């Protein structure tokens, strides 16, 4: 028994047939083939599946897809404009914010979301803003630096 889901993803109107309890994560990855959104733990701890739903950062592994009816969703695929990288992406590239790349999409969305709310965050605000996204490679130092440098751009 599937229901129809209508939403906007990265500025494009999308329709999908989804099971009542389907996770937004699976709908994005499997139905819409937007595989930039990653699954790390499936229980809302690691933040690898972070996306923006109506501007709010959510763990898409905990978000029932049908709750996104009519919503505006932004995934990592919608962060760059064409070939032009977002300042945060550019900064992650320059300053070593990405290593294995698995936490990177979620981390970048968390950073984008943070900077949209607070254009010039303090270090404590950066730490808090990213505390829901786990990274096992960087020790976060280069990620903080990437965010700070992105604000300066």
């Amino acid at each position, binding site marked *: 028994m599937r229901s129809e889901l209508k939403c906007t993803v990265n500025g494009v109107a999308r329709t999908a047939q989804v099971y009542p309890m389907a996770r937004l994560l699976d709908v994005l990855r499997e139905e819409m083939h937007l595989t930039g959104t990653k699954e790390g733990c499936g229980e809302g701890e690691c933040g690898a599946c972070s996306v923006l739903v109506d501007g709010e950062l959510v763990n898409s592994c905990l978000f029932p897809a049908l709750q996104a009816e009519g919503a505006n969703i932004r995934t990592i695929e919608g962060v760059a404009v064409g070939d032009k990288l977002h300042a945060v992406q550019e900064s992650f590239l320059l300053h070593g914010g990405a*290593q*294995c*790349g698995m936490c990177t999409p979620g981390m*970048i969305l968390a950073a984008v979301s943070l900077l949209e709310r607070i254009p010039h965050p303090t270090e404590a605000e950066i*730490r808090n803003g990213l505390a829901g996204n786990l990274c096992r490679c960087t020790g*976060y130092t280069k990620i903080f630096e990437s965010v700070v440098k992105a604000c300066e751009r």
Partner: protein
Amino acid sequence: MTVGQSVRRKEGRDKVTGAAVYVDDWSLPGMLHGATIRTQSPRGRIRGIKFAPNINWDEFVIVTAKDIPGRNAVLLIDDEQPYLAAESFEHAEEPVVLIAHPDKHKVEEARRAVTIEFDPLPPVLTMEDSSRVFKSFHMDKGDVDSVWARADFIVEGEYSTGAQEQLYIENNGMIAVANSQDGVTVWGSLQCPYYVHKALKGLFDLPDEKIRVVQMETGGGFGGKEEYPSMIAGHAALLAWKSGKPVKIIYDRAEDMAATTKRHPSVTRHKTAVSKDGKLVGMEIDFAIDGGAYMTLSPVVLSRGTIHAAGPYSCPNVRVRSRAVATNYPPHGAFRGFGAPQSIFALERHMDRVAAAVGLSPEEFRRRNFIKQGETTATGQVISEAVDMNGLMERAFAAIDYYAKRKQFAAQDPSALRRKGIGFATFMHGAGFTGSGEDYLKSVVGIEATANGRFRILVASTEIGQGTNTILCQIAADTLGVAYESIEMAKPDTASVPNSGPTVASRTCMIVGKLVESAAIGLKQMMAASPDRPLRAFSQYKAPPGIRWDDEKYQGDAYGAYGWAVYVAEVTVDLLTWETRVDDFVAVQEVGKVINPVLAAGQIEGGVAQGIGYALYENVVWKDGRMANNQMTNYIMPTAADVPPIRVYFAETPYKYGPSGAKGIGELPHDGPAPAILNAVEHATGLRVNHAPLTPELLCALS
């Protein structure tokens, strides 16, 4: 020149845009989803397998040990570990049955409908109870028995460490296509394509050319994708072989944490003789690690831990006895540092203890014993590099204002509920395979001048986040005298790249990088002689001159080169909650020439954060031989809110036989944080903290 420059990560753009393709991002037409049914008890005899009647099993492909076409053994060092348990099992989470179905939701439902019936056997769940030794070493320098009678001080101590989960953010996964005509091809998340290749050859009894292993983008490894991918690849391939369809197996986090390898738990006993002027006279070290139920890589982990057990000190009489014992836990395996973080933790805690017994500050005691150029290590290796541990130590102390803080914290109000402390660790880490290891590997690297005027590096060395792609391209670009942008990496695919060895042991930069350099020199000469394209040049490992190693006595040149380091941690301990917080961290190291400063610092910072987790948070809770906290909710790794500023400094002493003078770097940073932090906790509280992870519960119990 690009070496020494922080050029952009080769595959970085794909990673920041979400375009990079990891194994779970990829599918093949008609693909089935596979799952593994595992034992739920640590030891037993299998009576039968029951399939509940509520599932239509005709829709499923089912594989058991009977379906294996070749050898039921994950071939690595030995052949004891089965791909699928048949009659008996030696640990919980041991694979017994594989199932696959086109609908992954049905697979999950079916997995729960299979029961393994068994008669339990008594398990061994402590190292003390173990009566089986996988491997032991006995390393002797000088005559340690002669020192006890004349020692001014004898200091003894026992230290232990728990298991640690690698916790790469991408879980393990594999896709396989297999049939008797074309052979077996797997694509997956892995560190060592040729390890998987070897294991699959035996499993299917097929020749080299019928097995193909391809690495996909890999979301972290840290050793956790060194040996276990051979298991998953075999499982996916067995299902594909039987069904005739592509099969994908992706572990979820709970399965990955419970079933795959972790860092070996350890117990180390030290007995140390010191003269009254604070010189080490004798060190007797007993080092034991828990190998789990099968040998896997335990002998090699033990070897590295053994060699590093006596640290960067000059001592005339050293004995290290070590062993890896069998228990009925899931096999422990490779994890960044590979035995060294365990034995170095013990040593560096013990050195603080010895210093106190002699009445010296921890830094003065070390200063009197640091190894210098021309002196010998515990394996009798003469240090030919210009090593300056004291210089590294003073640099680290200056960066964190150690002397002032040491004094200030010692004078803090003893009734305060929040106590500050500062501590450090001094250590070394050998780069490349131990002893004769690289000679056995005989790694080969290729480089190609392509028809379109570009260059391609041919290696099986994998990018797992650490920067392989980038640094190897930098080395090639400089050697060839061409732009970094004109170099590309061939996909690690055993059908098209030579075996440059496994991506482990801090060897990719120093060993493989050097081979890239020499292959590029060869290519340059070929290009000067011939206008033909494509052209290919290869280079094979040859030990640097003068290297000697005795496998029997475990004496000689254990490693071609070492990284040397001093790490300092400043902590606050809350005496109400017993939480420890790391407030500041300084990491000073000498790793030869730094190829890419941003990537190198990233390696250190990441390793330090993992080491902070090892020191304080990452507690694997075992219950009846199974991991009880196999979730990110209750296995706690450091978050952005937990890590201190991690301040990284490099001293660069070029190593003659490394590419542009570079040595290894990847594992080193995991060695120092745990002892530095626990030394700081002792400084803050006066409590003798001898176990990592030092959880609040443990610290409270000590008070």
